[in-house]
């Protein structure tokens, strides 16, 4: 068979036309028959979940000094959230811990502070800021702010860059330098652990709020920690803050911390 340029061009043109009409036909056919056949149901918020406009916590420092429930608070939190107990202080992982006045409120200490404040430990945790710098720093949006004010982490998305740790002015974040599993004495199967290379911090017990429970530390604090909705003027926390003077950590930074310390 003798091929000429003319016949080659004819054949290739015809094939291109038929191929394209075929694919257009496919698209038309599939879009015509589309109905919503998704076999996935709907998700909704559980009716028993505690909801708020703006969650906040009030720490009654004197009450806590009297009933000495710090350790109970720390223990229960770290236990239910599978926080590892690292032997080396440099690898420490903590969600809630105690510290002295001069470290908790730097710049506010002076030599005439009553002795009791110099000595008593203050409970510190993530401040669930209104303008969280960690959220702005996070390149993967693993850390985000929920509409109820809780600054939360999606551990699945954390790539361990630790920008959030540098950004947090309160040192509320810890990094897992090692696989935490061997350092958890008793694993709570109800909550995942973390893995090596992930940052973690207090989550205001989001998983307990979803079940209608108060945060664990609040529950064991015997009234020294009060948790509630600052968006609701009738709530206990709003009422307390109206009556009693409270200070916050590093308020001049503009991060808007939501942990209030009654002094």
């Amino acid at each position: 068979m003798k091929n000429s340029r003319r016949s080659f061009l004819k054949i290739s043109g015809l094939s291109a036309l038929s191929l394209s009409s075929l694919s257009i036909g496919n698209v038309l056919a599939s879009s015509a028959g589309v109905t919503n056949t998704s076999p996935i149901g709907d998700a909704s918020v559980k009716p028993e979940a505690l909801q708020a406009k703006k969650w906040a916590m009030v720490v009654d420092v004197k009450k806590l000094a009297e009933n000495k429930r710090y350790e109970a608070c720390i223990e229960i939190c770290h236990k239910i959230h599978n926080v590892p107990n690292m032997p080396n202080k440099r690898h420490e992982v903590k969600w809630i811990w105690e510290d002295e006045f001069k470290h908790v409120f730097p710049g506010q200490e002076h030599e005439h502070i009553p002795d009791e404040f110099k000595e008593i430990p203050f409970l510190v945790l993530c401040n669930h800021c209104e303008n969280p710098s960690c959220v702005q720093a996070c390149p993967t949006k693993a850390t985000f702010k929920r509409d109820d004010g809780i600054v939360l982490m999606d551990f699945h998305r954390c790539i361990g860059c630790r920008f959030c740790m540098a950004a947090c002015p309160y040192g509320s974040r810890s990094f897992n330098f090692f696989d935490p599993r061997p350092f958890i004495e008793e694993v709570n199967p109800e909550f995942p652990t973390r893995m090596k290379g992930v940052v973690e911090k207090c989550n205001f017990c989001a998983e307990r709020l979803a079940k209608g429970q108060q945060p664990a530390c609040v529950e064991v604090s015997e009234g020294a920690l009060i948790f509630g909705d600052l968006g609701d003027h009738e709530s206990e926390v709003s009422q307390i803050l109206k009556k009693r003077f409270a200070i916050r950590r590093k308020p001049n930074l503009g991060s808007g911390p939501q942990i209030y310390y009654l002094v």
Partner: protein
Amino acid sequence: MQKNKMYDKEKVLAGLTIFVIIVTFPFWYNMGKAAPAPEIKLSDKAKAAKVCVAPKSFMTAEHMQILDVWRESVVRNKKRLYSSLDGKNYNMSLSTGEDSCIGCHVSKADFCDRCHTYASVRPYCWDCHIEPKENK
């Protein structure tokens, strides 16, 4: 027109034969030796329940998408209650005990690993989530 002539016919054909043999080697070498697709062993509880959160065919093919959608929903949107199309409610959780995926699918070895090992996929769910306690 001059008749086409193939130069070095023997060498070319021998080379082509060797090439075809090498390329198709994995196919005929493994012929008839294909491992049978694994059978998932459902726990008694899963058998009794009969239905999962979505039709079986969908769960087989798309369970990873469901898990991904659920993660987004639970972690970011606070929505933890799933209503399936047949009107049942489920707690959206992979691994928090009775009221979660592993409440029914109680054995990781019999349920997850069978297919994952066969397909050579290594999901890292259990690096963080606590595995179901195997009933040994």
